[in-house]
């Protein structure tokens, strides 16, 4: 699968996750190379989010292993995976409602850029970081300056989504995993988000789950199609979308 010369950063071997009788992710072998921009599509309930959850440590698989930079991280807790450079967003936007937009960014920034220690949790007040250049720049990029001081609970869905993506990008992770980052965004917002992602492309490996392929088609270098917990196609976007299996189960045309 290694089409790039660059080394593999994430690999899953036969990962499986069941919910009762239902096999949500069924013996999936997948690998992602450094600096690759990859996407996963699939119909509702295909297992995309569950697969994300297995990679990022929300669930541990019943079977199989997850490898990150050559190390087995199957049993590693989620927060330690973040420390290794993995960052994700959630399908249902997930931010801290009772904090301001800036403080949401500060939390992400501190964890990623300062040495994570008791000292840093206590000694520097939040206000010290609020004027940080990186955070200001980030507010600007995501067009959030207007609401910077507002509590997140008062934001619109689109703003929350941009904030969540901003938080993940601000942490400058090695791998960025985005679960339907464009859902609920307007056309202009989508363009904005993709532009920012493009800026980051040279530095990061990105894996995007998206329901509607049309939005991200030009952006992706590689596409994987999931169906009923299995990978049914993997490769260049064009080829994938035309594969007979995919036509049948994703497009539902024969």
């Amino acid at each position, binding site marked *: 699968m290694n089409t790039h010369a660059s080394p593999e950063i994430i690999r899953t071997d036969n990962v499986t996750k069941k919910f009762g009788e239902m096999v949500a992710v069924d013996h999936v072998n997948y690998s992602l190379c450094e600096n690759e921009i990859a996407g996963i599509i699939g119909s509702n309930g295909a297992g995309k989010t569950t697969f994300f959850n297995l990679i*990022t440590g*929300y669930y541990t698989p019943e079977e199989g292993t997850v490898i990150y930079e050559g190390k087995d991280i199957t049993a590693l*807790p*989620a*927060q330690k995976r*973040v*420390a290794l450079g993995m*960052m*994700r967003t*959630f399908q249902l936007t*997930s*931010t*801290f*409602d*009772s*904090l301001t937009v800036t*403080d949401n960014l*500060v*939390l*992400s920034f*501190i*964890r*990623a850029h300062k040495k*994570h220690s008791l000292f*840093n*949790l*206590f*000694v*520097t*007040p*939040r*206000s010290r*970081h609020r004027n940080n250049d990186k955070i200001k720049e980030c507010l600007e990029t995501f067009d959030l300056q207007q609401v910077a001081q507002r509590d997140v609970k008062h934001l619109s869905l689109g703003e929350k989504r941009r904030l969540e993506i901003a*938080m993940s990008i601000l*942490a400058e992770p090695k791998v960025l995993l985005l679960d339907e980052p464009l859902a609920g965004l307007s056309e202009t917002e989508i363009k904005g988000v993709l532009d920012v992602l493009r800026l980051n492309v040279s530095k990061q490996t990105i894996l995007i789950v998206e329901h509607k392929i049309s939005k991200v088609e030009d952006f992706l270098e590689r596409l994987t199609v999931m169906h009923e917990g299995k990978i049914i196609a993997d490769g260049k976007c064009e080829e994938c979308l035309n594969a007979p299996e995919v036509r049948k189960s994703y497009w539902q045309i024969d």
Partner: protein
Amino acid sequence: MVNIFRWSWGLLLAFFCLFLVRVFLPLPFANEILIFAIYTIGCNFLLGRVGFISFGQPAYLAVGAYGTAFYLFYFGSNPFVGILIGVLSGVAIALLVGPFFVRLRSDYFALVNLALAVIMFYLFEKILAKITHGDNGLWFLTNMTSTPIIDLGNPSDFFIFTFLLAFGVWALYKYLDDSIFGACCLATKTNEDKLKFLGYSNFNIRWLAFVIANTTTAMAGSLYAVYFGFVSPEITAPSRAADPVIVTLLGGVGTLYGPIVGAFAYTGMKDLISGYIANWELFIGLLLVFIMLAGEKGIWGTLEPILKKLIFKKKNSTN
């Protein structure tokens, strides 16, 4: 520097008001409010900032009180050392039980703390009766030596000491609110999954918050012990377990000055109403129901925005 001044004005103002209590009202009342407020701030922090409701705060209060009592009864006579030992006992118990308790969901957390309070009650009343003298309690008022400058045996000196201590405690909680840790606490309360996926350990943050809160609670226990010169298992009686929660709700959950206002209102009503009606708790109960139905903001939670508006308006008109 400017920031420090801005936040400390509110703090100074609050404590100036608290000092007025001492001037205009009887000393025992002032002392009781101070200790009760310190007792409650831990509970308020846990509930308002970390999202944990605890019906077992008397357990930690008792550990602090007995830590101080054992020292003053058996070993030494310096009340300051007694208080220090009480506080350290609080740190120890919180470090010890914290890892088990903070894993629980908030509702189970409330109950497991209540269970701990019940255990403590029997521990101090029955199991350790040989050293705690059971229900008779430990009397050590006369064991305490008077210390120079501030003599804790003297109620008026005791007020000064407790007042300064309370000021320190509030400054600390104010500082915590503005720290990264404070943001982490709010974050773990509202969205622990997201916090985990930003790379923080919810467990560590909760444990730390638990230790800070219950150390403060134990400190209040130590103060009770020194103030009365007496400790009995009654201090952790399960029937009093909800007191700090009540005062927290009364004052306003998650507000900095809620515990002071709540302690003032609670103690005030207790002293005032119990003069007329025997069942003053009934009145508190009704008031709580009213507060809950009126939007769960508590007394301070309701007053704060109004006061802010007043002060803000004044500033605008002077500009």
